[in-house]
């Protein structure tokens, strides 16, 4: 970013700046009525002005909160900025949330004004009116189906804009002064962290923090006004807000809103973004789609695909990292790029992607490497709502599948003895809204934010997140034990569906394994192994061998990591049943409840540690049809090869 943005300490000021210096550069596009309707920065600024004046005329004051619920649409982002112009605080809510989930935020922030995308959202807000007496104005963007709604609270955005124009005619200077009043220290937005545990918390972020982080990352990746982003994740999620609001406002690039959730794929292909974010599950889904579609291809094509993907696995990543590659490899890759990678990037809509991020959960190495090998610069980052996202980012050329990279400029990191990651950064949140106690817990006197994530620095100083602190234990010898980390490593194998690792305060690590019925089933059919069901299949020696390979592969990796070399898996067994939320073995979000399982299957755990070769189980199982039955089986327990930390590389 060549231009000087100093003094532009709020988003509205940035907007007006862009409206001046690049009035006709596209600011935001939306696929509507069959084409990409485009707003330049000037147009966007006008929209914002009108909305802001309208809101003010309708009684929206400095410090008020504006609830915004809807999918990615130009108006939604315009509304966010309009609120900020008036010194108000936009509160984006998840558009897929049920009405009840909206009650708390609205009550919590005593919200009077709300902008809703369409009938669906309006209905939700009207539904909770009784619980939210404060909510007095609801503005809707898409009038479809709302013509007969007579509630006094309702008003269309068109109308609001007219009101705004009238107001401007009366007092043209009003808004400029309002914008001028704003300062970086003001709250810029409030994001409610999804309340999986306890009540949601409203994370308050200031203009300064958001702008600082957005700019730091933008400079690091040298984003410019020529970049293009497709906005397809919920605007209420901090990440989407950073990528499609904060960063475009500091760099002046263009964001594109898809026509609908169903058309994201094709819309992305049309737009061809240069800057792309996707959580691992999305990347996973894309890859699966690719594999499935390739299945139907002619034999020749499949062979070609397989061959060149092999080439890509060998040299693709290295080329992307600028590592030396032999001329032969380069030529082959070039050919592959013409025949496979290029077309593939094209159909995925990633031809022009020069920077892609993934984050949120651990990503499987194969998945991660696939995208990099076909020439997409996919990188991991680490951050959270409280930190305005950018804490760690993998710099170009230093990309690894199992770290999140070093700290971004301006961020201080340290680990507590308990290995908890602490952060101090200009991007840190101001407070949890109306929750000083929680704020104090999260942010200590010296301004360190306690992430609750456990990890450590790897040799290159990259941060490696292994688990939540509360789950991290230590082995008898005091070395680190991170069950979730092991379990994830195992789950990255297609044959492993769930894994439960034990070892806290024990001398060594042992695991339960849930094999993936579909994957192993197919595998068995290919080798025409006959089996009657899960239990039977699980008991096959071949299956055990298959799983053992996975376990030993994990051990090999672990041996390479000084910190974790001791948590190599010594013994494992394949459970006689699939872990099931209905049996309270998993949470509804399919997280293993380690403690509960430990108690429920105490017998098996004991067997793992007392060296028995097999153990008899009798268990209640609930079948798909809801009937319950008893099964009794002898589960075999096997040892897995472990590796000496030194010799790890050779053995692996």
């Amino acid at each position, binding site marked *: 970013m060549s231009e000087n943005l100093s003094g532009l300490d709020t988003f509205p000021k940035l907007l007006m700046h862009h409206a001046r210096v690049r009035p006709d550069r596209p600011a935001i*596009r939306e696929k509507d009525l*069959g*084409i*990409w*309707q*485009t707003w330049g920065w000037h147009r966007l600024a006008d929209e914002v002005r009108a909305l802001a004046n309208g809101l003010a005329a309708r009684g929206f004051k400095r410090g008020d909160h504006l609830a915004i619920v809807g999918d990615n649409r130009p108006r939604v982002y315009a509304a966010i900025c309009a609120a900020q112009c008036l010194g108000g605080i936009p509160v984006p809510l998840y558009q897929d949330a049920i009405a009840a989930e909206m009650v708390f935020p609205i009550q919590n922030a005593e919200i009077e004004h709300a902008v809703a995308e369409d009938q669906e959202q309006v209905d939700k807000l009207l539904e909770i009116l009784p619980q939210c007496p404060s909510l007095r104005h609801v503005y809707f963007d898409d009038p479809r189906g709302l013509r007969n709604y007579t509630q006094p609270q309702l008003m269309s955005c068109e109308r609001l804009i007219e009101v705004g124009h009238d107001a401007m005619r009366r007092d043209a200077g009003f808004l400029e002064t309002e914008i001028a009043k704003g300062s970086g220290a003001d709250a810029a937005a409030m994001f409610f962290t999804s309340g999986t545990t306890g009540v949601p918390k409203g994370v308050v972020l200031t203009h300064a923090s958001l702008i600082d982080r957005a700019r730091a990352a933008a400079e690091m990746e040298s984003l410019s006004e020529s970049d293009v982003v497709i906005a397809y994740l919920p605007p209420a999620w901090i990440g989407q807000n950073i990528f499609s609001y904060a960063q475009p406002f500091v760099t002046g690039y263009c964001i594109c809103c898809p026509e609908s959730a169903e058309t994201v794929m094709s819309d992305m*292909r*049309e*737009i*061809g973004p240069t800057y792309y974010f996707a959580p691992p599950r999305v990347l996973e889904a894309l890859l699966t789609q690719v594999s499935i*579609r*390739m299945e*139907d*291809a*002619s034999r020749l*094509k499949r062979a*070609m*695909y397989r061959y060149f993907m092999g080439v890509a696995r060998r040299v693709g990543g290295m080329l992307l990292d600028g590592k030396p590659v032999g001329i032969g490899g380069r030529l082959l890759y070039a050919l592959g790029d*013409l*025949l*496979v990678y*290029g*077309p*593939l*990037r*094209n*159909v995925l*809509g*990633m*031809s*022009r992607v020069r920077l892609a991020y993934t984050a949120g959960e651990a990503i499987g190495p194969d998945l991660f490497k696939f995208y990099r090998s076909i020439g997409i610069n996919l990188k991991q980052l680490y951050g959270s709502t409280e930190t305005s996202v950018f804490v760690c980012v993998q710099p170009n050329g230093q990309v690894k599948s199992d770290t999140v990279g070093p700290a971004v400029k301006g961020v201080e990191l340290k680990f507590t003895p308990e290995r908890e990651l602490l952060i101090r950064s200009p991007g840190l949140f101001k407070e949890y809204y109306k929750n000083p106690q929680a704020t104090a817990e999260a942010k200590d006197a010296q301004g360190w934010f306690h992430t609750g994530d456990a990890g450590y620095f790897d040799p290159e100083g990259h941060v490696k997140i292994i688990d939540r602190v509360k789950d991290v234990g230590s082995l008898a010898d005091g070395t680190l034990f991170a069950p979730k980390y092991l379990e994830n490593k195992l789950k990255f194998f297609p044959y492993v569906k769930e894994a439960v690792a034990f070892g806290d305060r024990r001398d060594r690590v042992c695991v339960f394994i849930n094999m993936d019925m579909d994957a192993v089933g197919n595998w068995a059919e290919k080798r025409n192994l006959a089996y009657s069901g899960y239990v039977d299949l699980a008991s096959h020696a071949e299956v055990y061998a298959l799983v053992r390979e996975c376990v030993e592969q994990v051990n090999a990796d672990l041996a390479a990591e000084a910190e974790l070399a001791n948590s190599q898996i010594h013994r494992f067994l394949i459970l006689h049943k699939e872990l099931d939320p209905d049996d309270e073995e998993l949470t509804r979000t399919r997280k293993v409840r380690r403690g509960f399982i430990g108690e429920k299957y105490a017998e098996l755990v004991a067997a793992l540690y007392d060296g028995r070769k097999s153990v008899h189980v009798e268990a209640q199982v609930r079948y798909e049809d809801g009937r319950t039955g008893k099964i009794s089986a002898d589960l075999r327990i096997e040892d897995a090869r472990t590796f000496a930390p030194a010799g790890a590389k050779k053995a692996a």
Partner: protein
Amino acid sequence: MLYREAGQFKSSYAQDQQIFPILQDRVGVAALLAVAFVVVPLIGNQYWLQAILTPFLILSLAALGLNILTGYAGQLSLGTAAFMAVGAFMAYNAQLRIPGIPIIGSFVIGGLCAAVVGIVFGLPSLRIKGFYLAVATLACQFFVLWTINRVPWITNNSSSGVITAQKIVILGYPVAHAAGKYLLTLAIVAVMALLAKNLMRSETGRAFMAVRDMDVAASVIGIPMMKTKLLAFAISSFYCGVAGALYAFCYLGTVEPEAFTLDLSFQVLFMIIIGGVGSILGSFLGAAFITLMPIFLNTVSDWISGTFSLEISHALVSNTQAIIFGGLIIFFLIVEPNGLARLWQITKEKLRLWPFPH
């Protein structure tokens, strides 16, 4: 495979409605035109330009005309050659009788006369459909040739009915060489193809197709049957007429009515069937196929006689050609009833989705 469309998005209906929405296509077409206009005249020899490319272009234009009528408006016609004849002889008369008229002008007049004849013989289409109409258009075929033979004025009293097309002069420059005639034809064909494409992608074209696909529904949404059908005949005949004029002036030179027999009508009909009914591109592909195949067969037979040094009687050659020709047509109809244009379309789709099959 070579299609890389990511990032080619449309932010206005103008972009979205253009003839070649995909960049790669635009580039390809531009290149093709460049070759046709510049490279070919430079490297093409007399024989190719005069005996192959020029007639190919002219017949493409005729096929295009027929395609407008049969492919788009769904009115089967066997009278193409007659419309071409009208164009040829009227253009001749225009040159002959209107002093100082530019050659293009007389081509247009030829086309317009053909259009009038087309409208007259299109009238039955208001009452009858399908093969009845097809046979009706045969009436046109025979009547027109008969008239040309019988009315001395048309052939300027030439006893044999043979006329000799005047020299082509454009802005004072005589166009005598094969290359010149080729370029003239190419220019006219290119422009008229563009006009046809525009027409077919606007209201008129949609009206034609509506009438073709379901005439009752068409009239229910307010499309006037009579106007639409007659317009289709008029436009189609105009194209055939101009093609006929070119046939006379740029290809044959001396023309007799028998140059425009039913066989020619069928030949053009073959072109659109092989090339693809209801496709501008198809008209060209079909014309290429039909004009090039006999040449190909000739070369093959020459090659055979040459290599095996055995005497092949002309009758033998021509008959074998007829058989192979007919056979190929049947073969084509069986393997791809929708014509070469469809084949191209399928290939293109595959290339766009590469490496995926669908």
